[in-house]
């Protein structure tokens, strides 16, 4: 089994895995970073979203062998204390229900605001497309993104 050096949450991690192993399973089974969730396995629900080189990617379809060039940020690496502005807005608005899709939602939302601090409604729609919430927390997700964006203006 080949060995790979990944940069995860700004730390170098050396792991052994088959080259076709999706990053999702490296994070979850090998590195115990279980905040990134498995749900569909085919990149169609967004629950496994992480940042790779600053962009939101579906970690269930990105193999370990193709994720070696840049930093990977997971939900655990967003902040030490849960106070990153999106996380804070999520708490202010009590967004979570079952919670299972929330790390994917938060990773997509943080990637959006890092590139586009004042997103329009349409920007939010585009950035959050394909990230499914079965409980229907969408209305609070939209408000939380807007709240975080408004606070960054202050």
């Amino acid at each position, binding site marked *: 089994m080949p060995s790979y050096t990944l940069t995860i949450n700004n730390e170098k991690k050396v792991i052994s895995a088959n080259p076709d192993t999706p990053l999702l399973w490296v994070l979850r*089974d090998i590195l115990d970073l279980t905040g990134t969730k498995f749900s569909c396995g085919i990149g169609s629900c967004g629950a496994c979203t992480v940042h790779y080189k600053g962009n939101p990617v579906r970690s269930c379809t990105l193999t370990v062998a193709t994720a070696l060039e840049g930093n990977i940020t997971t939900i655990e690496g967003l902040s030490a204390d849960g106070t990153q502005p999106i996380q804070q807005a*999520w708490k202010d608005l*009590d967004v*979570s229900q079952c919670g*299972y899709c929330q790390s994917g939602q938060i990773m997509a939302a943080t990637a959006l605001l890092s590139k586009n601090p004042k997103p329009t409604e349409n920007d939010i*729609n585009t950035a*959050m497309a394909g*990230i499914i919430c*079965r409980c229907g927390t969408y209305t609070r997700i939209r408000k939380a993104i807007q709240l975080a964006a408004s606070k960054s203006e202050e």
Partner: protein
Amino acid sequence: MKSTLDRRTFIKLTASASGALVAGVCFQSCTTDKLPATVYGFSPLIKIDTDGWTTLIAKNPEIGQGIKTALPIILAEELGADWEKTKVVQGDYDEIYEEQWAGGSYAIILNWDLMRTAGAKVRQVLIEAAAKKMNHPANELSTRNSRVIHIKSGDSLPFEELITEASKIPLPETVEFKPIDSFEIVGKNIPQVDLDQDVRGTTKYSIDVKLPEMVYATVLKNPVFDGGVSSWDDSITRTVDGVLDIFELDNKAYGGRLIGPNSPNFVNGIAVIANSTWAAFKGAEKLNVVWDNAGSRMESTEGIFERFHSQLTSTSIERKDGNVVTAKRKAASIFEAVYELPFLAHLTMEPMNCTVDFRADLCEVWAPTQNPKALQEGLIKLFGLKPEQIKIHLPRIGGAFGRRYYVDYAMDAAVLSKKMGKPVKLTWTREEDIKHDWYRPASVHKMTASLNAAGMVTGWQHILANASRKTSLGREGNPAGTEIDSYEFPGGFVPNLQFEYGHVLSDVPLGQWRAVGHSATAFAVHSFLDELAILNNTDPIDYFLKFLGPARMVPVVDDYEFDLKRLITVIEKVRQISNWETRLHEGQGRGFAASKHSGSYIAEVVTVHMDKNDKVRILRVDAVVDCGIVINRSGAEAQVVGGILEGLCAALYGEITIADGATVQSNFHDYRWMQLDEVPDIHIEFVKNDLPPRGLGEPPLPPAAPALANAIFAATGQRIRKLPIIKQL
């Protein structure tokens, strides 16, 4: 579900009225030798620490409905605890807790008195202890912010200084509840207790469990319902790096497909054990299995619906009031319509999974289950275990919606852990999850109304034909139950009324789905009422109010009544907040529906816009809810929004189809779910009153589909009589 719910509540209240306070039963027994005081302080649910913090046990499975926050709120309220100085801990499955399950919108209803009693009795003990220490009479003392206070003098003592004295005092026999108008926590916006860990990704679901020596597993099940394994070739699977072992899962060796009258066992297939989830998935993909489908009906959606339609003329009568035949003969006109609803899947975001550590002395389970008691019963049946040899942990659960009422996936994991002699984490792929769901039954509804010269209903006949969840896979029960029950609306409202049920047997596994039978019947009933209003050139809300008649208590069946004043109130209020009377733009329309479910009354108005390509856009939803006392305003609103969105989404897109005896859909790409950009503006109001709290997980869902279909009619003149809507436009 309406009547069963109210009946159960009634039984419990009767028991309490007769002197043996129901809520006290559990907590009295807990003060005896069954639960030593050292285990959990004064009550199995409340622990007061010397550091001033109070720990509250959340006993019910948390599936996203907010119960892990709501039940402790009730405890803290009656106790007089400072919410900011409480910690909430999830309880494992334990029979001392009672009613430890999630389903049917029951959790608040069944636990309201239990939680109040537990909190109040501990408060009474603390006050008695404080009376001795403070030299004030107990009847002048109260609790607030985790202190016992004497308002007249301003004296107070914190709970933690009363622990020694209080632990000598037995819990009182009679409970004294706080007056509802003195509540300080109940009814506020309280964030979910796990919110901080949710946003940091540190919440642990059962899919996140990791144990020493643990191996990983997945399953490949026969996609044809209830089929078996004929033979298999695993030679390629065994070459996959990380694969450790391969087993056939044959339920015949474990008591067959049904292990109790109502509890299904695991589905037949092949299990792959590996040193990682990914290796197990890859290994399963490489299996070459010849399935045994000799016993299958090899059904298709078309064939199933043909049988439903034929069964409309061969039915059992489930309710008969007056005489619908005479009503038809005397009618000025008769109106008929037939509605069709599809099978639906659950698609919980967390797929089926379970971790089991099956040791010689103890079978320890981490399960995403709504129904831990059924899980325990399944393990007893399969392995001959005693209850004390089973430990069930209840981690957070990534959605349930009724799917996790059944424990088939947990039986898989237990069998595999026993075979391996090691802890096993089983994870189903999404494909297995969709293909081996317990679907919401499809159904056909033939509605017939006899109308008088004024266009009002004098006779009502509702014939429902389908394959019933009650008899799915040979389970026992009245097949009409939860499909069309005697207490279905508008039973009790029309003098000549008949409900009939046409029973079809099918291989499709059927089960609970949010709002159960009401998720289907409400669509037929409230679409039909809208059609009658249009037929009479009457505003649909006006017509419905006229149909209901004056505010009164309407006896539906036995002990189940309908408080019409409460329904009329939510209807009038939703008419107002939705601006129902104002004109809309061309291509837009509003639709209305209102119902009672799980004791709660709810009225909804949906506003849609149809573009030139007949693409529907939902602009706005207004809902007014009377669920009695609201426990947590924020959590309650989340349930209403979630229920409405699920109802709308299922009506628009939801459909499981069957071909060659198996489910066609396989993942989110072919079972569409609503996305952020489709979500309308949602306006919700709660009626404020002091009535006992009722269910909220399910009630918002049933009116959403008919309100949407009625809005599409208002916008386009096209009547939707068959779901999903997207296939009709």
